[in-house]
Each structure stands twice: as C-alpha cells, then as structure tokens.
C-alpha cells in the first residue's frame, strides 16, 4: 500500500482527517447515536408523542414475556432458513448458467435481472393481485391448485412469502455468482476436459470449490439480509394471517408505530441489532480471516 513512501518524501503526512469529518458526523448523528438511542429507549416508556419517561426494565419484561416475541423470532428463523435453502442453490446454478458464453443465456440474463428494479412495495402489490384466488394466476391458467387463498392460509403463507422473497432477491445473488464464476480461470476447465471430466464432475471439482468466497459472501448477505425483509412482508401480508408472518422487524414496527409502545419496540430493536451482529460475526468466522487481508492488499 503506502509503506514505501516515507523514504523519499519526508513531508508526506497524508491528508487531514477533516476530510472524513462530514461523513463521520452524518454517520454518527443518524446511525450511531440512534443505535445508542435504541438501547436507551428500551428502558423507557413512550407512546411516540408525549414525554419519554424512564421506566426501568418494564419494557424488557413485557417483551420477554410476550409470546408474540417468541413467535416473531421463530417466524424470522423460519423465513431466514427457508429463504436461504431456496435461494442459495437457485442463485448459484443461475450464476453458473448465465456466466457461460452462449448468446441465449446472455439474453435470458437481461430478463432475469428485471426484478432488481422493482421496489418491495411494487413486488408485494403485484403478488397480492397475482395470488388472488378469483382473479389471479390460478383461474387464469385454469389450475385449481393455484387458485388457493395463498395469503389467507396460515399454513401456506410463510412459503408464499419465501417464494416472493426468492423472486425478488435471487436475481441479485445470481449476479454475485455470475461475477464469481467469470473469475474462474478457463485453464482449469480446459485441464479437466483433457482429463475427461464431464460437466457434472467439472461443476463439483472446479466451479464449486472455486466459488468458496462467493458462496460465503452471498450467504452472509442472504442470512443477514433476511433481518431486513420488512417492507415486502408489510405490504404483502401485514404479518398475517394472525401472527404467521410477523417477523421481528415487522413486529418491532407494529409494536412501536401501531400499538404506540416505543419502549417495547426499542427492546425488540436491540434484539434485532444483537442478532444481526452475532450472525455477521459468525459468518465472518466461517469465511476465515485471511480473506480480508487478501482483498485489501490486492490493490
């Protein structure tokens, strides 16, 4: 990096730290201070309008004894697990598929990425209409199985949510995998072909191991990202029916802004922060340490 500079230029001391000050100021003010604020507010009682009153641990007691909290955690875990299990293999295969040089695959890739442009609100509204048992996909194709009340059935709705999440986010992960596959040296495949390895063998012997870091990146984003599936589920199901899709971020929002219990909502926010940090650190560990170094020193 910049170790060798000192020898010739004694004057060089690098730019002033003030250049970073505006970014640091904004980030402290609207991200770090609120982060501290959410801890503080979890020990208060506040309805969102009136005075904030210190209230000890009562918000925490409320949150931790409320069965809805446990349910929200369980729903979050289920959505996290299923959306990972669904998205990861599809994204990986599509990434490999679109990275090949055939023309038709390039054309398909252009269309695959269109969902990236839609807002979560737009996706949710589109699916609400599409999944309507009377005017949606089911009657349209004349398939009775598809004409179910997908969003009203508490046994099915979770899987519908997982499907819609996959529809919206698989394109993004496909993109990550596509980039990863394109970096694999062609010589590896040439060598394998000379050795007579078939397509499936090549996939498992070369593509998959070479994609190790891409898999870790994409998986981290999928898992940590599932803590942010707020807007899609909010518009699609509102957390219902009942509590069946009320995952943690949504539960936090509804507790704070609909039930006007900002103290309890802040306690839920703290739980959300802790889960996010723990997940990020665990996945980071899985990825190994040296890769950061290699990435930063790659320059």
């Amino acid at each position: 990096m910049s170790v060798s500079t000192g020898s010739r230029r004694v004057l060089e001391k690098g730019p002033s730290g003030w250049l970073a000050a505006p970014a640091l100021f904004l980030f402290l003010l609207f991200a770090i201070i609120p982060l501290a604020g959410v801890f503080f507010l979890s020990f208060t009682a506040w309805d969102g309008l009136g005075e904030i009153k210190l209230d000890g641990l009562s918000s925490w007691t409320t949150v931790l004894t409320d069965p809805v909290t446990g349910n929200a955690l369980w729903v979050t875990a289920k959505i996290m697990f299923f959306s990972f299990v669904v998205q990861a293999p599809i994204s990986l295969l599509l990434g490999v598929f679109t990275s090949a040089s055939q023309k038709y695959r390039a054309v398909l890739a252009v269309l695959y990425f269109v969902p990236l442009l839609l807002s979560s609100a737009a996706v949710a509204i589109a699916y609400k209409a599409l999944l309507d048992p009377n005017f949606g996909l089911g009657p349209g194709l004349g398939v009775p199985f598809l004409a179910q009340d997908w969003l009203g059935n508490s046994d099915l709705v979770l899987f519908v949510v997982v499907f819609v999440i996959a529809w919206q986010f698989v394109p993004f992960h496909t993109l990550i995998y596509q980039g990863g596959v394109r970096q694999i040296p062609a010589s590896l495949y040439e060598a394998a072909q000379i050795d007579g390895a078939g397509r499936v063998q090549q996939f498992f012997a070369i593509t998959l191991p070479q994609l190790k870091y891409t898999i870790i990146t994409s998986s981290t984003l999928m898992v940590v990202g599932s803590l942010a599936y707020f807007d899609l589920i909010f518009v699609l199901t509102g957390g219902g029916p009942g509590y069946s899709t009320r995952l943690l971020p949504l539960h936090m929002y509804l507790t704070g802004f609909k039930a006007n219990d900002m103290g309890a909502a802040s306690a839920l926010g703290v739980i959300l922060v802790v889960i996010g940090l723990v997940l990020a650190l665990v996945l980071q560990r899985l990825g190994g340490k040296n890769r950061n170094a290699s990435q930063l020193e790659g320059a």
Partner: protein
Amino acid sequence: MASTTQLPVPPATRVAPNRKPVQRSKGPGRSRPNFLGGLGGWLWLAIIIVPIYYVVVTSLKNQAGFFTSNPMMPPTEPTLDNYKLVLENDFAMYFANSLVVTVGSVVPALLVSFMAAYAIVRGKSRFLGWTNRLFLLGLAIPLHATIIPIYWMITKAHLYDTLLALMLPSIAFAIPISVLILSNFMRDVPNELFESMRLDGCSDWAMMWRLALPLTKPAVITVGIYNALHVWNGFLFPLILTQSPSTRVLPLSLWTFQGEFSVNIPAVLASVVLATLPLLVIYVVARRQLISGLTAGFSK
C-alpha cells in the same frame, strides 16, 4: 487495515464497471448442449416473466374486463384509462418527491463518502483508522433497527413530514458501503501518481479532485447508481417519517393507491408499472452500469 467486522467481499466480485465479460473459450457446456441447464434456465425465465406479464396485461384492462376476462389473457380492448387515473392522482408530484429525495440523498452521500474514502486510503492517522472501522461496523448492523430513535430525532428537529427528513438518514445509511467500495478503488490508484503530483506542489485537496476523482469515476458512478436504487425504492423511512400526500414518495404512493383504489386492481397495477418505468428506462439505456452498481453494493 483489515477489520473483523467487514462483510466478506471477494476480490472476484469487486466492482469492475465497464468490465467486459471475460470470454471463456471453453466453458462448461461448450462441448455438447446442456439440455437440463437450458430447461432450468427457461423455467426460471417463466417464473420471472409471469408476474410481470400479469401486471402489465391487467393494467391495460378496464374494471369490467378485469372481473370477466381470463386473468392471464391480454385485454380484448386495451385501455390506458388506468394510467390516466393514476397520473391524475398526483403521480407527478410523488415522482418529483422521489426524485428530490433520491438526488438529495445520493449526491451528498457520494460527496462525503468520496472525501472520507480519500482520507482513509491516503491518510495514516489513528483517527482515520477508527473512522474506517466504525463505517465497517455499520455494514454488520441492521440499521433499520434504529428507526425509533430516528423518528424521535426527526420529530424533535421539527423535520417530521418533510423531504429533508427522508434524506438525512438515507445519506447516513449509504455512507458505510459507499466508503468501502470507493476506498477499495482508491487503493488501486498507483502511489507514484500521488507522489509526482505532490512534487509539483499539489495539496491533498487538489489531488483529491484532480487525480483521485477522475481515476475512480467509474466507481463513483457505480456507487451512485446503487445508492440511488436503494433510496428510490425505499419504503421504511417514508412510512415512519412522512404522513401527508405532499411529501409522499413513489413506493409509499403505491401502498396508498392500493388502499384508495382497493377494488380497482387494474389501476393499482398501473401505478406499479408507472413507478417502475423510470428504472426500466435506465436499465435499457445503461444496463452495464446498473448491473455493476448492484454487484458492487451487495449489502442490506
């Protein structure tokens, strides 16, 4: 400089705007056609296209047609009335609000992130090291967990229900990933260039604008697009920080349209099409930049 809190970003997928796809002379599947792979590819295309097709087709039906015709068939007499209805319902204003918020968030975010990235890469002080670590930490935290204190701050500052209320936290949330990507790029600028400019008597300020900026311009554009997409499609901040129609942005307007026209599904879907149209135009015009912007960001 390695930090333990950094999201893993493989060298493979670091931004490379304008990068030509690497042509693989003999990729897998070159020898004989991969029927299974092809089948899967077309199947996924169907999954992607069907909802989009349904939305477009339905938005062109009149309400009677919606209730009577086959949902998957194109309308017998296509109409643009739904679009007219949406446009008459202040769509232009919501569009303008979205534009103001997006530009007002992305430009300042880019400016401060670029300066910070320059200082972090070129500077050596401990303060800058800590600043960088703090930004990296920001990538690991689900920042929307902070909406309640943000709501409190915005109301205390008497900014509730203003567009500025949406911009300020959007800028802050865009900073960590922007600094990360920009500083990764800044490291690729050869040190010799900076040294020779310094010999010519250039200040750091001048070097930042005259050397670092032109050389990292593709990355700046990429980060800008990534942030713009996020702010444009953002839903949570508008939901909690604004209220009146005059400050409504597009994603929120879709949601309120849905409430107002609940029975008029074709109109609701027309609003979805109209809200997506600007991005679709950008996608058609600048696909490469947009795509590399998305891979560059991958956080959140």
